[in-house]
């Protein structure tokens, strides 16, 4: 072998130590894995689509959600005036009038009502859950981190409150406050924070016992810094997952309360209100039930699937699977 063909290139110590690819932060990695999960990603797109439609949908045709039209009541492809046409023809005819989902029993446009209802249902679901999570995290975090007497007192109170059936209290609060979006949010928050407080406390207790927190304490780092730098980043993923799973529960609670006549008062509408109206007319005009039912179910389904996907994506233990 000819030695002259080789030469010493030397060691570049700087280069040897450098990281060849940009490092992935926890959130970037989670996002990458979330995108890899096709079901969850599709669900996410669906929810974003629903939110966009809730914002712009009511303005996409010329109808408004409260104006009635006695000439076009219960107007859909199944209506009597389409008796002699094929399904395709009648569908074309219906779409050309601008009533894309038909009309309800007093001639209000269902497309507009569905998306006005989406505004109410989605905002109640998200706002109530976010407030719940914040309140629950603060209470549960304090209780779990400081422990001792504070923890004992808070947990006794939470134990007692947790035993009270939440729907029953929500019903009573709704009766006291009267129907409406604000009262719905208040009712859902008053009964909902307890669950997230319990959950966050449990997670904080788990993290608190781990060695890196102990190390930080031994190094004399202040409680505030430990909470901000170690505890919160470690439970943030779980809290967000929990939040995603709680949104469909809140949407369901809204639909349930509206269904028994306590949620949103007419002429306002939500998906629960539409479903209630649909059930009443189910025998003759089933589409009025099936349309809101479709949106309630797909939203709850998509949010549950996103939650499942996030749980996998945000769990560092499942990282390289």
């Amino acid at each position: 072998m000819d030695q002259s063909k080789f030469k010493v290139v030397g060691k570049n110590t700087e280069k040897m130590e450098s990281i060849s690819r940009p490092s992935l932060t926890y959130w970037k990695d989670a996002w990458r894995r979330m995108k890899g999960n096709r079901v969850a990603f599709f669900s996410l797109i669906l929810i974003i689509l629903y939110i966009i439609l809730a914002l712009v949908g009511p303005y996409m045709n010329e109808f408004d959600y409260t104006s009635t039209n006695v000439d076009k009541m219960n107007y859909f492809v199944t209506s009597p005036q389409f008796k002699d046409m094929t399904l395709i023809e009648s569908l074309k005819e219906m779409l050309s009038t601008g009533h894309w989902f038909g009309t309800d029993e007093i001639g209000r446009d269902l497309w507009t009502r569905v998306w006005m209802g989406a505004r109410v249902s989605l905002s109640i679901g998200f706002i109530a859950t976010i407030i719940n999570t914040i309140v629950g995290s603060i209470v549960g975090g304090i209780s779990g981190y400081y422990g001792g007497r504070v923890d004992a007192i808070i947990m006794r109170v939470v134990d007692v409150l947790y035993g009270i059936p939440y729907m029953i209290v929500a019903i009573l609060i709704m009766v006291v406050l009267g129907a409406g979006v604000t009262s719905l949010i208040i009712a859902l928050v008053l009964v909902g924070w307890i669950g997230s407080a319990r959950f966050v406390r449990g997670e904080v207790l788990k993290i608190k016992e781990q060695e890196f927190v102990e190390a930080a304490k031994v190094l004399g780092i202040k409680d505030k810094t430990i909470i901000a730098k170690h505890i919160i980043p470690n439970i943030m993923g779980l809290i967000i997952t929990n939040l995603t799973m709680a949104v469909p529960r809140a949407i369901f609670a809204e639909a349930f309360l509206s269904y028994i006549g306590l949620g949103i008062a007419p002429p306002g509408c939500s998906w629960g209100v539409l479903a209630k109206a649909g059930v009443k007319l189910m025998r003759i005009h089933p589409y009025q039930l099936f349309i809101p039912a479709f949106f309630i179910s797909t939203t709850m389904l998509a949010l549950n699937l996103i939650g499942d996907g996030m749980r996998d994506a945000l769990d560092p233990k499942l990282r390289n699977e």
Partner: protein
Amino acid sequence: MKKYIIKRVFISLITILVLVSVVFALVRLMPGDPFASEKLTPEIRANLEQYYGFDKPLIVQYFTYLKNLVTGDLGYSMFYPNLRVNDIIASAFPYSFDLGMRALAMAISFGLVLGIVAALNRGKVLDFTCVLIAIIGTSMPDFIIGAILQFFFGIKWGLLPVAQYKGISYTILPSIALGFYTLALVSRVMRANMIETIQQDYIKTAKSKGISKLRVVLKHQIRNAIMPVITILGPIVAALLTGTFVIESIFAIPGMGRHYVQSIQNLDYTIILGMTVFYGSFLVVANMIVDLLYGIIDPRIRVSGE
């Protein structure tokens, strides 16, 4: 164990007391006047108010109510003045209980079977079907499931009666509608537990000892996987209970849920109060029994609880 039971019973009693107080306060805060719908002379009205104790200070009313409650007396309805709340509950509860039990039995048996079948056929078509059922169950509100069942089985195909509660065939649709969510929940938990136990060492040991596959599944896997299902019984009972509110009104079943929703619309204070206390105590006791049961089955819980 004794200490654990005493502690658990004590917490439950306090919960019921807090519940009664909260409900009492909320009911008195309700807007509207329960006597508004009747045309009453001021005299009769005063008499009525005196009868219900409205003329006395709130705190006295509260203690009177507590005292009556301890003796099991829930008072009279305000809307139908000759009806006792106890009688209403006594006549309506059997319907709700029957419906709830049927739903629970159906949900647990089918849920467990679905979960087990899914886990044993993991990744195959059967698994996919079971998971699909579970997903539908958790993402469809029960009143929509009820209405859709009514539409297809009752109206379109005419197979089953759509309303009332007068025989076995009447109970099928409402039980399915009420239990579907629970079924989905049970099958999901069971599937996850089964998959988790498959990887345990004792399953490997059992297999390597040459025990037949069926025996491993029946004796080791299912027995271990079924335990955590008990922990979700508490939320399940709560879900079934609130479910009866809508299911009973959809299927016109004369149970408690229908009376409850009606009394809220009538502002019938005593019925609301009485039924809420009844519901609440029922749930609290059910939760307590579930906790105690779990403590008996799994010693780790009661040790950590002490």
